[in-house]
């Protein structure tokens, strides 16, 4: 098979059904060989030579980003397909494990918070950053909890993120505001917290909202209030249900924030 070639300077195209030449299919097939190639390869600046083949790390990062977005979409679906979610989450975990072994799993220290660099994830930042890069230079908004978006050096814009920009940029905009602690934020946090864990193999809380045994009054009221008051389509109600907290928590989804989130979605 012809190797898929990627030109990082070209404007990527939407991918639905197409065979994007930028897709590094064959590179992913040689997962193990990468280790020897890595030493000789310049991860960050591109390769010496005439072929503009992106480095393995970039491709891996691209796959990670794509997977995280897919997991997000899983949470937004009316009926998340559990098998698909599990398979994607396992893929993310695999990548995380490999990146941890590489030592490439690192986060830039937040400017003011003084946290240790490994406390927060790089993924959020990269995804946010790659989207914002397409939209031109913008001051990166504060992403809650003192996480400051930073740059992982050497990584240029991830092509795959752009194809998903339209529906996703609104997601990130919602996410970027500290106030929006509706279903979105909780789902995102759940997903990103999973990768934060230093013990690979535990996808924390990723599926906790799938567990439907917690039909206590809080959960029921949250869901019913959300569905009667929001009055929006079933997609929104999925957010409400995704935000249903474990028993014992008195958290109620803020309907004002949910409305705001819906407004943004509807506009796109």
């Amino acid at each position, binding site marked *: *098979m*012809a190797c*898929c070639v990627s030109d990082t300077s070209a404007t990527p195209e939407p*991918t*639905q*059904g*197409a*065979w*994007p030449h930028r*897709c*590094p*299919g*064959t590179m*992913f*097939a*040689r*997962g*193990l060989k990468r280790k020897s190639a890595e030493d000789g390869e310049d991860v960050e600046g591109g390769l010496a030579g005439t072929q503009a083949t992106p480095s393995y790390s970039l491709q*891996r990062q691209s*796959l990670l980003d*794509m997977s995280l977005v*897919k997991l997000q979409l899983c949470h937004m679906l*009316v*009926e998340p*397909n*559990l*098998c*698909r979610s*599990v*398979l994607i*989450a*396992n*893929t993310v975990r*695999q*990548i995380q494990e490999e990146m941890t072994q590489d030592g490439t799993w690192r986060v830039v220290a937040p400017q003011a918070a003084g946290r240790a660099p490994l406390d927060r994830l790089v993924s959020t930042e990269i995804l946010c950053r790659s989207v914002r890069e397409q939209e031109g230079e913008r001051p990166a908004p504060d992403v809650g909890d003192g996480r400051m978006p930073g740059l992982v050096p050497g990584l240029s814009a991830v092509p*795959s993120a752009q194809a998903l920009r339209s529906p996703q940029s609104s997601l990130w905009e919602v996410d970027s505001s500290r106030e929006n602690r509706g279903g979105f934020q909780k789902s995102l946090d759940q997903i990103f917290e*999973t990768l934060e864990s230093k013990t690979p*193999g*535990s*996808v*924390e809380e*990723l*599926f*906790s909202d*799938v*567990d*439907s*045994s917690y*039909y206590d009054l809080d*959960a*029921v009221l949250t*869901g*019913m209030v*959300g*569905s009667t008051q929001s009055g929006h389509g*079933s997609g929104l*109600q*999925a957010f*409400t*249900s995704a935000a249903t907290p474990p028993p014992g928590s008195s958290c109620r989804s803020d309907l004002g924030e949910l409305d705001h989130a819906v407004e943004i979605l509807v506009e796109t």
Partner: protein
Amino acid sequence: MAGAGGGGCPAGGNDLQWCFSQVKGAVDEDVAEADIISTVEFNYSGDLLATGDKGGRVVIFQREQENKSRPHSRGEYNVYSTFQSHEPEFDYLKSLEIEEKINKIRWLPQQNAAHFLLSTNDKTIKLWKISERDKRAEGYNLKDEDGRLRDPFRITALRVPILKPMDLMVEASPRRIFANAHTYHINSISVNSDHETYLSADDLRINLWHLEITDRSFNIVDIKPVNMEELTEVITAAEFHPHQCNVFVYSSSKGTIRLCDMRSSALCDRHAKFFEEPEDPSSRSFFSEIISSISDVKFSHSGRYMMTRDYLSVKVWDLNMESRPVETHQVHEYLRSKLCSLYENDCIFDKFECCWSGSDSAIMTGSYNNFFRMFDRTTRRDVTLEASRENSKPRASLKPRKVCTGGKRKKDEISVDSLDFNKKILHTAWHPAENIIAVAATNNLYIFQDKVN
């Protein structure tokens, strides 16, 4: 086919000349989502062919009887009954819609004049009775022919109602509804060889039912971890052994199959046999696990083998050997280098089914571009055929198709990049005794027959 001389079925896919027989469904380019066929199943005799669709409807076709005056219509399948099996529902507690899509249909063996089948969506299984009515009673005492009640005081004489023939009417009525037993989405149902029980499997649990009892089911497999955070594997398919009523298998998203014996314990969490092929380290990639996920598992009619379908291949396993399959057939190996794109557009999660021929000598499964593949286990030959309206002249032979994987594309070959990934054949069925196959292509059902037939 019984007429083929030495008894038993003739050899499988490749000694046969497959011909177009019929196609059912709309011709429109615009496919209504509800019309997409989601399951296809022959009954035990092969005279009835049931399809379920995303709109929750079941359509049953019946094979026409042999008629010497119309030899060409012999063996044609025509609509026998259509009914709405499942309706969309709303789960108020979770604020989620429950799709009405029919995931599986399984027939019960026929025990009297009526036919019974089980149909299921994500949450609820229903037992349907399909019966014929070709007589009606006339001459009631208490009501008129048009059904209006008569004034009792005006009745001066009594008569015995008589049965008169009428146009055949086929009625479908729900006899049992098996609900509220599955938290996750049902992916399989399987009728036991005892004809009294059946199993239903969702992502994390398998339940055993008695066909007569709807308010109770027994949980026989539960792989839900205490902490959902630790979930890494789900159940993808399950089936009862065709002869041993205590044995069933279930497959997982990690490419493993577990065979369980219900006699060993009530909860079959510990398997009796564990089938897994060791991974080939040279082909390992980030997609290895996803493409190893098994989308379908089917016992052979003999009960000696089982077949599994993963994304790129079908494997035949001998039940006596757990370490590796006895046969591996590549369905569309040319997609291996495209896995990243297929992951991106979600095609990598497509769940293809597979089926055995009546004699177990051949196996069939679907692919993209409306292609389907047949593998003859005796001659070791395989063929790629296409279900399309272009090859749909009556009794026209199907021409084998070939996908060009690189280099110069020959005439009549199609290159990998030209394949239409929206045209996927996920559901196929093989007549239990004859060489007749049903292939579901989105909203169309194709029926192909062997020329000899």
